[in-house]
């Protein structure tokens, strides 16, 4: 009963999205009104929420009803809807806080969450919230209202200050380097189904905020510091931050030995692409950013739910302890397969459409170095994608539980099947996604819509591609090749044992370490750049910062020698210098 109720609650975002009529408003105090309204931009993110909520709720329903978690999840949904519908900053902030606290409490419900994780989660999110609060108050001070609309009549410096405050608040939520410390820990240790929600949805609220910024300051990116090549100079910095984030996070992801931690780092990297695209700021780039947000939501839901199924059935989460689950969990295998194809941005699936838009937007802005850096991140992503499918599903079963696991329960499989269908459908019809989801938002942001002549085609000024033709050609080729080969296969013999391997003349046994699992990507450290990145951690960066500050303070303290004569001498010197400066100045 309570489960049914909970599932109904999880459908509320969908109901909100479909049933939303007029904008609501009620006065709060003098001259300030709370307004709730559905703009195309918020509708886009609300759609993601509406799609994801029931899919995440379904796996949570399994087992005994955990009513506190259900309540918190409902509260989280409420907070996020409030956040998305908010027409003014007060309701936005209320929604933000509800989201932060309910997700924090949900995170605490996992038995694996340790103190450090909880602390880092709440500290960074509070930092984000306070930055947001500061930004809102400064905004009020400058403009005299709380409404989320174009702020007119600000000086350049006011705009920079506001953009910096808002930007930092949202970038913390997105998990940009070096503000990402809370992400890998909490995604890893959160309850398994809830990790999907954290990665797919909660982080998207940061993206929502970042996309909101151009609404506030329409030409902030372009007008602030002028233009660099064919893009906004201020965005150039943001774009580099995004790309560096994705490169570093990608290499970190490769070196992880835990499935969920790998996915957490890959989330950071994928959101780095979105940050880059927002930095470019053209309509192509924003289209790409939204598309990437959409794809990332679908892919991360799919992957986290599939991985949750594996963890549920085997109790193992490390790459070393799994293997050969392909035959035991075939549907989860296909889930992860489709997931990594989307994650890597391979052509038949929509991940490619998103990447394509972002690449083209970088070309359009003539930011080629960023393009190269992004290609580095997205190619290196193949390594962790392969690790993600190889280590759990292929190779050899490396633990007792991996040898006896069974397919995940239906509560996990139904969301996977739905998500696989959505991904394949979007891959077939990239133009449909643009037409239905992206273009309305771009029009509302007063940008040129991307437009698409047909469902299957994705069109940009730089050329496009046809998803249907691609899929049909590939599918036909595959069917023909397979059919032909199967007819002419000759005498095909199935290996008598998993150990029937070409192993340098040896006969491996169950004791031979045959699973490559966690070792994959370890040799990447021999490449100087990768080795350098992996040797340094962000915590090390902060520690070094502390060390440097201490050293600087020690150097400064050398002036305070305790000798009065030195003091007087210093004072005279400073005074004389100041005098000289002021005279010279006048």
């Amino acid at each position, binding site marked *: 009963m309570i489960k049914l109720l909970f599932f109904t609650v999880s459908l509320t975002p969908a109901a909100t999205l479909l049933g939303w009529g007029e904008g609501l408003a009620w006065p709060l105090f003098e001259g300030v009104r709370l307004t709730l309204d559905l703009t195309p931009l918020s509708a886009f993110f609300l759609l993601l929420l509406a799609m994801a909520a029931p899919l995440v709720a379904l796996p949570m329903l399994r087992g005994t009803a955990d009513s506190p978690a259900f309540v918190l999840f409902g509260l989280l949904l409420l907070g996020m809807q409030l956040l998305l519908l908010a027409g003014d900053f007060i309701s936005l902030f209320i929604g933000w806080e509800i989201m932060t606290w309910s997700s924090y409490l949900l995170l605490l419900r996992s038995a694996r969450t340790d103190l450090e994780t909880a602390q880092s989660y709440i500290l960074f999110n509070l930092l984000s919230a306070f930055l947001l609060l500061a930004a809102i108050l400064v905004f009020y001070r400058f403009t005299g209202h709380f409404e989320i609309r174009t702020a007119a009549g600000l000086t350049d410096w006011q705009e920079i200050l506001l953009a910096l405050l808002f930007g930092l608040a949202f970038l913390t939520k997105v998990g940009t380097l070096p503000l990402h410390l809370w992400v890998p820990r909490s995604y890893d240790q959160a309850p398994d189904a809830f990790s999907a929600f954290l990665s797919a949805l909660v982080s998207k609220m940061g993206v929502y905020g970042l996309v909101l910024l151009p609404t506030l300051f329409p030409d902030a990116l372009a007008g602030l510091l002028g233009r660099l*090549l064919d893009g906004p100079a201020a965005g150039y910095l943001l774009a580099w931050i995004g790309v560096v984030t994705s490169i570093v996070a990608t290499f970190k992801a490769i070196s992880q030995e835990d499935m969920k931690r790998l996915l957490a780092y890959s989330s950071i990297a994928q959101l780095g692409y979105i940050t880059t695209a927002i930095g470019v700021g053209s309509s192509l780039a924003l289209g790409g950013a939204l598309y990437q947000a959409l794809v990332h939501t679908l892919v991360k839901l799919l992957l986290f739910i599939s991985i949750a199924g594996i963890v549920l059935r085997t109790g193992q989460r490390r790459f070393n302890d799994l293997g*050969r689950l*392909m*035959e035991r969990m075939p549907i989860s295998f296909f889930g992860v*397969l489709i997931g990594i194809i989307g994650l*890597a941005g*391979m*052509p*038949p699936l929509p991940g*490619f459409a998103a990447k*394509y838009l972002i*690449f*083209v937007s970088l*070309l359009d802005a003539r930011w*080629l*170095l960023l*393009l*190269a850096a992004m*290609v*580095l991140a997205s*190619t*290196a992503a*193949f*390594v962790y994608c*392969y690790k993600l499918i*190889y280590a759990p*599903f*292929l*190779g050899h079963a490396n633990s007792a539980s991996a040898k006896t696991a069974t397919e995940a329960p239906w509560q996990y499989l139904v969301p996977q099947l739905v998500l696989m269908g959505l991904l394949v459908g979007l891959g077939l019809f990239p133009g449909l996604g643009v037409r239905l989801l992206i273009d309305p938002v771009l029009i509302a942001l007063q940008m040129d819509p991307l437009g698409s002549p047909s469902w299957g085609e994705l069109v940009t000024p*730089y*050329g*496009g*591609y046809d998803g249907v033709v*691609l899929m049909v*050609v*590939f599918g036909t*080729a595959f069917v023909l*090749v*397979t059919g032909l*080969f199967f007819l002419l*296969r*000759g005498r*095909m*013999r*199935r*290996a008598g044992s*998993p150990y*029937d*391997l*070409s*192993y340098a003349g040896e006969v491996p046994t169950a004791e031979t370490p*045959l699973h*490559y699992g966690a070792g*994959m*990507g370890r*040799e*990447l450290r021999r*490449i*100087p*750049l990768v080795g350098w990145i992996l040797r340094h951690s962000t915590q090390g960066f902060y520690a070094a910062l502390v060390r440097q500050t201490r050293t600087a303070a020690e150097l400064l303290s050398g002036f305070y020698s305790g000798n009065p004569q030195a003091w007087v001498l210093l004072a005279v010197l400073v005074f004389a210098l100041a005098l000289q400066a002021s005279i010279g100045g006048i």
Partner: protein
Amino acid sequence: MHAVLDSLAMIGISYVMGFLFYGFYRQFNARVQRRWGPSIWQNLFDNLKFFFKSETLSHGPMFFFGPMIIMAGAFTTVLFVPFLKDSDWLQGFSASGNLILIIYLLVVGPLGNALAVGSSGNPYGVMGVTRGLTRLMGLEVPFFLGLGLVMLQHETTSVHAIMAAQHDVAHWGILTNPIAFAVILLPFIATQNGSPFDVVGAPVEVYAGPRVEFGGRLLGVLMTQNMMMSIAKLVLVVDLFLGGAGNFLILILKAFALFLLTAAISMVFPRLKTEQAVDFFWKVPLGLGVLGVIAAVWLPWST
């Protein structure tokens, strides 16, 4: 009907060109080493020999599907690269694709095959795949940057448009954008699994490689797709830098000239380890690419 005939022609041509070019490569290699070498048909013999093996070992369905995926990927790649310009023939489905799509298509097949390698359970195979992905990570950055320079120069990602812009010799990409050609040349050899960078599937000596478990007819499929994919890549570079080809004869000539250049480079350099290769790509071709970008967009006189 036209599309079907056209596709079959493209697939057939890329196969025939593939084994002849590689047969020539072996012959050429032998002459450089002052020996006679095999006949030019040797690659065809090898390939057919594998197709006529009477026994094939399989490690289960995924192992079987891997080579099928890579073959389908090779067909798709071939069909998305326009072979001729200003012609109705040998176009495949290239009108529905673009350069970035082709670059990604080049990788689809090998990744599909990587699944098969993983499902065989042979750690040496997976080691080879990891090496391949690592090398890919190294070569793709300068390769993409070089092609990015071309796309920027013509302000399009369409291979047709880039080909059409090179209407005479003076407008060939190799002359109008020589830096881009220099940037992509070495990564291009690596995408072909060419000699200094061929540690991944080292044909003769290295035990650990993606093909360690494949034998019999499945290996024949892998060989076939490799030859076809090489031709697709050669034709792509011909389209982008050598002005494409108006007819079939010119296509063969240009592709052969390019192949001769890459083969000559392959022949004289010793093999690099994977991480050396990656480091090399990130230093020399990428450094050159960065210089190219500076010349193309940052300097005041650049448009």
